[in-house]
């Protein structure tokens, strides 16, 4: 792709440029029940180019794909077309990032230790090892083993690249109970393959679907303390709060929170502390740089309930006058709280472990959604329940929520495993 860089350098109308390169190799396995239906492999490369054109005090930009088949003439024509477009897409001037000292971290995990075809076979075997429970099955399982090499280059000299390996699995545990079948959706991701751990996770998912099959209709309780105990939903609950502190939200005046605001004022919950980090063990979204090539550093956005700083892309940080914009962060971490299972068991609660898709809407001050499996604790024992929705006041929940001592890690999240919210409507 030297032709691309030459064409960018020699075009006099381009004030700055950025190239994102994504080389990807994958190996994929698709099971129907216990049998293989399809195997796949991919080897592809994508080049995404952004050019910046200055006109007076304004800067325009246009982003486009360049493909490996393109020759010098075609690339030059494409660049001219986008210079033209950028000269009309004008915005307030902003800079692009300067190079910073950067050392690419070694890819974490062990997925590069063997050829992908061998590793994926072992992953498949570890999954199917748990698929032995009477009345239970895995209806479908998809395994994606990916190697990603990402590069960012820009006209100021940013020239960084790093490699990651990840495994993403989607499986659908199914259970037959009194002729009725139910299923759940179970995503799993990791970069460190441990066959025993994977088998145990699948076994746990099968026990969850068994509970869903045997679940009874949720009794009419009105409002009750609710525990959100589903890692994806917990991650989303925290991310929606933090995302209001995005530079872009402030620049477009659509933010609800101001810096220095105590989101938990008057509340008696566990203090909420959110920090963004670049690399977190087990979080596959970990990345040392963002898409602009900004080297990501830890940034605390909420400290003990008080909003401390904003975060986000270099451009919108520049607009807000930030000296060192944080870049788009990779992993949200939330400080664990003080709550453990023993304390919870003192009074009735409803623990929700599978949502069909939790809604977290700060604008409408609402969180909730349909719950596919919960456990209702009536003061004596947990009973699997289904067929209900929850609905809560988001801002009130932030003040009163209790956070678990126990931590969990998800794709872009590490923090409390569950959130306890004292007053939530169940219907």
């Amino acid at each position, binding site marked *: 792709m030297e032709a691309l860089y030459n064409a960018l350098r020699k075009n006099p109308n381009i004030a700055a440029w950025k190239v994102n390169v994504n080389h990807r190799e994958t190996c994929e396995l698709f099971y129907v029940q*216990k049998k*293989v239906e399809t195997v*796949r492999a991919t080897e592809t490369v994508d080049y995404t180019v952004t050019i910046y054109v200055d006109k007076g005090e304004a800067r325009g930009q246009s982003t486009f794909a360049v493909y490996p088949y393109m020759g010098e003439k075609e690339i030059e024509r494409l660049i001219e077309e986008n210079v033209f477009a950028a000269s009309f897409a004008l915005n307030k001037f902003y800079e692009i990032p300067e190079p910073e000292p950067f050392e690419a971290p070694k890819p974490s995990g062990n997925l590069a230790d063997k050829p992908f075809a061998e590793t994926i076979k072992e992953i498949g075997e570890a999954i199917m090892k748990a698929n032995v429970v009477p009345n239970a099955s895995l209806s479908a399982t998809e395994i994606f083993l990916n190697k990603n090499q990402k590069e960012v280059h820009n006209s100021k000299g940013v020239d960084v690249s790093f490699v990651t390996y990840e495994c993403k699995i*989607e499986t659908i545990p199914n259970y037959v109970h009194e002729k009725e079948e139910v299923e759940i959706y179970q995503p799993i991701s990791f970069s460190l393959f441990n066959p025993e751990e994977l088998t145990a996770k699948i076994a746990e998912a099968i026990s969850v679907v068994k509970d869903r099959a045997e679940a009874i209709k949720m009794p009419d309780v009105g409002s009750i303390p609710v525990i959100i105990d589903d890692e994806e939903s917990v991650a989303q609950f925290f991310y929606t709060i933090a995302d209001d502190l995005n530079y872009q939200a402030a620049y477009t005046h659509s933010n609800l929170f101001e810096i220095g605001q105590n989101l938990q004022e008057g509340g008696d919950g566990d203090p909420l502390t959110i920090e963004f980090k670049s690399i977190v063990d087990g979080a596959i979204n970990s990345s040392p740089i963002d898409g602009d090539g900004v080297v990501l550093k830890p940034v605390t956005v909420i400290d003990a309930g008080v909003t401390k700083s904003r975060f986000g892309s270099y451009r919108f940080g520049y607009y807000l006058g930030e000296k060192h914009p944080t870049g788009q962060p990779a992993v949200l971490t939330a400080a664990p709280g003080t709550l453990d299972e023993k304390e919870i068991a003192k009074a009735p609660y409803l623990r929700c472990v599978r949502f069909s898709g939790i809604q977290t809407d700060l*604008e409408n001050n609402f969180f909730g*959604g*349909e719950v596919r499996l919960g456990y209702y604790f009536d003061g004596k024992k947990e009973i699997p329940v289904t067929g209900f929705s929850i*609905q809560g006041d988001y801002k009130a929940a932030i003040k009163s929520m209790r956070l678990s001592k126990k931590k969990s890690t998800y794709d872009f999240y590490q923090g409390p495993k569950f959130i306890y919210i004292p007053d939530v409507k169940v219907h």
Partner: protein
Amino acid sequence: MYSEFLSSRHDACKALVERLKKRYPYVSILGKHVSGKQIAVTTFNTSVSDTMERQCGFVVKLYNGKTYAEYSFSDIDENGLDELEKEIIAKTTFPDALLDNHVPLAAMPDEPLVKSFFRPVEGKIPTSDEAIASLSALKDEIQKQDERIIQAIAAFSYYETSAMFISPNRDLDQNYTWMGVMVAAVAREGNEVRQNRYFAGGNNPAACFEQVKKHIPEMTEIALALLKAEPIEPGVYDIITEPSITGLIAHEAFGHGVEMDMFVKNRAKSREYLGKPVASPLVEMHDGAAATYSCASYFFDDDGVLAHDTLIIKDGILQTGISDAVSAMQLGTEPTGNGRRESTKRKAYTRMTNTFFVPRDSSVEEMIASVKHGYMLSQTDNGMEDPKNWNIQCVCSYGREIKDGKFTGRIVAPVVMSGYVPDLLMSISMVSKDFEVIGAGHCGKGYKEWVTVSDGGPYLKARCKLG
């Protein structure tokens, strides 16, 4: 215009198929090149970038006597076929111990067909400067509606799809375009922030711009009204669904359940209901790239199967599902032209295309007048399928209260519909003659594999649990 890149690689693909067919009982190659732009003008920003749908590459599909195997790659060169053939063989060879435990499969039929398909743009696609000028005018129009509009958004997107499908007996190519204009208003009063949007799609850019312009006053009026929106008191209500929500029901609540790769995996309750009532006798539902004209109206799918119009529900009775080629083979049915990939980098699954209920003869006014206490539900926010258990989760951006046959002026937001799919479909008691299919959607399979889809239909009167 059909992709010059794909044209220039056609002979190399033919040659590769000829080589691979000596080794494999089935082989095909899909090449796809999608290009286009998305241009947005907002109060705070103007941007130009490639369309989200952009892609350029190939995928070869093989039957190796045990399983199907695929290899995705970026380019093909007639002089490099030896190397590419070796790479395909190497990368799709997996340990025998793994493949021996395979689903019973066979080579897919390969009926002879050589054909080109082309749908020209109606009118002229605006250049970047022309689009920015038109969008700026729309943005200003939104902004001037009310000082509480803190952000106005106007966006234009278009994409042109070229695809070729080559197997030993088939040589197909297609070229078509789709475009849309979206406007949105973000309103703020004190600490309340609300938004609303409107979209028009089609194959005629001037008509799309004209249509959204007409709807700006109503769109902003609703954004402002939402500032006063209240939460709904949970309960079971009479509802009237606007076409956007009708489409959400057709797509999320029911459509995913008739994707027949779900039958193969024993994941769809609807399989047990083929030939049985699942909805009120007023209900007729279709899906298909050839069922209507919208954003999923291609000529052949990613398996090289021609577009269909599939009648899914007739007079409330479930007729059939929709399928990709490999699923149809496993079920012993005919594929329906619903094999779709997010891109050539991804696997083909059974996917919906244009999914909708058909209109009947009620007027919307009659429907509103018939409601004692309920809500007219509008604008899709999101939805999630549950094909196995037929639970509904559909989120509507807002609802307007109706009492004694009239709108009260009260607005509730957001509104979550829940319940059991057949209960909702069986409760449909009126179906309007007004009809709209909205081509603005992207649909995932579970949480990935995004493809463009449209959905819609008439206004429906039904009864449902809202929260």
